[in-house]
């Protein structure tokens, strides 16, 4: 039998790529059950303790950092999504002075290296005299999230047939009603995608946060700091929990979409 390279190469490559991607996640997950002492590097036995008493270690420092990250993420996401959606609609629908310049300006935070952005913002806050705390982090996050929201929502607005809104107005809908019942529901998938992206970016951000956080500790910052003397297993617990939570959301979305498609196909 002739040996077919192509037949084996692709599955092998895929397998290796998957292993490469999965190893850190599996490692994190497995070591969240480690009965660790000072450091969480060697395996000392299986325990549920870290999952059950996640907020006890170091006076709850892990949980506090996690809580901060969630709070910052939520506030920055809401602010960035609201502002970004409005900007996106304005950029697509209206012609105004400095329109293309606005587009360029919104693109800059994505193109600028995070170190530069973080350091620049820190210098800015210092010279204006704003003390660094939660507020400065939220401001910084909102700023860079807006860019991503605008890009995401803009595509959706551009794909929206203006005749739909005209039809809404023609059918006795006032400006507010047309927005609430036609424009917004049709943009919603784009807005939700933008919000998810914003939250992920904010929750994940370390560099910009580190420059502008002052005494406030976020989850990425906590991990970075504790990495020097050994990350506690509680951090693994939270990281695993976040991963599982995200996985559940994705699976739920997929399943409900498949069910919907099936239902529609049945009707048609």
């Amino acid at each position: 039998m002739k040996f077919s390279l192509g037949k084996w190469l692709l599955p092998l490559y895929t397998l290796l790529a998957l292993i490469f991607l999965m190893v850190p996640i599996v490692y994190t997950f497995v070591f969240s059950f480690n009965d660790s002492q000072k450091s969480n590097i060697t395996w000392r036995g299986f325990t549920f303790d870290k999952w059950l008493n996640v907020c006890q270690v170091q006076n709850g420092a892990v949980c506090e950092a996690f809580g901060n990250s969630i709070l910052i993420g939520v506030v920055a996401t809401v602010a960035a999504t609201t502002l970004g959606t409005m900007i996106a609609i304005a950029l697509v629908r209206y012609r105004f002075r400095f329109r293309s310049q606005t587009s360029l300006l919104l693109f800059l935070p994505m193109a600028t290296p995070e170190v530069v952005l973080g350091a620049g913002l820190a210098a800015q806050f210092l010279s204006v005299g704003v003390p660094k705390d939660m507020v400065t982090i939220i401001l910084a996050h909102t700023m860079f999230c807006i860019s991503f929201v605008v890009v995401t929502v803009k595509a959706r607005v551009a794909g929206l047939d203006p005749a739909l809104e005209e039809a809404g107005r023609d059918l006795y809908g006032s400006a507010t009603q047309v927005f609430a019942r036609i424009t917004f529901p049709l943009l919603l998938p784009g807005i939700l995608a933008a919000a998810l992206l914003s939250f992920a970016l904010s929750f994940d951000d370390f560099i910009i946060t580190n420059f502008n956080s002052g005494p406030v500790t976020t989850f990425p910052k906590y991990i970075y700091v504790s990495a020097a003397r050994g990350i506690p297993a509680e951090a693994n617990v939270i990281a695993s929990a976040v991963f599982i939570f995200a996985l559940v959301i994705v699976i739920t979305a997929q399943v409900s979409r498949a069910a919907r498609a099936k239902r529609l196909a049945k009707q048609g």
Partner: protein
Amino acid sequence: MSSGEFASAGADLELVGIQKRFPGFTAIEHLDLKIPAGSFFALLGPSGCGKTTTLRLVAGLEEPTAGRILIGGTDVTNQKSFQRPVNTVFQSYALFPHMTVLENVAFGLRRRRIGDPVAKAHEALRLVELDHLASRRPQQLSGGQQQRVALARAIVNRPALLLLDEPLGALDLKLRRQMQLELKTIQEEVGLTFLHVTHDQEEAMTMADTVAVMNKGRIEQMGAPEELYELPRTAFVANFLGQSNLFTGPVVGSTSEAISVDVAGQKVVVPAARAHRHTGEVTIGVRPEKLTLHLTEPVDDVARNVMGPGHVVDVSFSGVSTQYIVEVPGIGNLIVFAQNMAFGPVAHEGSEVWMSWNIEHGFGLEDDASAEPRFEADDTTRSIATQKRSSLLTELEGA
């Protein structure tokens, strides 16, 4: 329109001195139009003639640069789109993709807080025979069904005026015929005023009571379809609404009854009542189906114009009729439609033929076949540059 009540009947529409300019070009130069209540009015013209702009002005989706719009005697020029007793069937249908068919139809009723919107929506869907699909989404329907939903969504509101923006353009021929019939039936049943915008002359003629032919932002001629067809006033109407044979020449004799025109040496008589100009160079014409083809020179008849001899240069057989193109030296090509009363074409390519037609069937135009455009075409360097620039900008932003 106040909420909670329907328009009692169709209302008449009046456009007074409407002008609409966009950056770089003029869509409507000057438009006066009155459409009586309850009529089916078609605005016919080639693309870019301003007909869709006219419709959008009436719907309130564009604001006129100058002029007034009156619906049922009320000035609505400054009213917003949602305040006008007008509904539109959009060219793209513009059905809301996130709502069911039923919710689409009930949308207008709910906005105006009309009692029992669901029952009324079902009733409208029954009228277009789609009630069994009420719970579907628009994207699950065929083009023809979507079109009927769009129609139901508009008429359920019983607007004083219903605007149709080439809604049949996307349908195939058979479906289009069905919808034309359906529209006409609905119009007769509910008694609304219909304003139908189309570039399809056949559609306009079969459906409308009154047709206005629009060209370059102006109405060239307005009247009943038969009147427009049999007695076109301008060369544009003569050629856009069906086909015409047009001749230009000086008037060589005129009586109170008729004028005779010298067309490259051949005398053609047109009734004075059917000619707009009686002196000087005039353009006259006759419809191709009014011509009779002769294989021998016909005997003189005072009631008929004779033209020829010429040579047949093209014969195309289309079942019920045959179209001949005859080249007459000094005059050019003439089109003849001959009913196929006997088997096959009677003349062949290269045959020498004469043509004759009843004097009563000729018409004299107001303008010349080669007349200058009615108003200056906006093709100055500056306006072209403006248009280019704005289209480029749109393109760039889309990228």
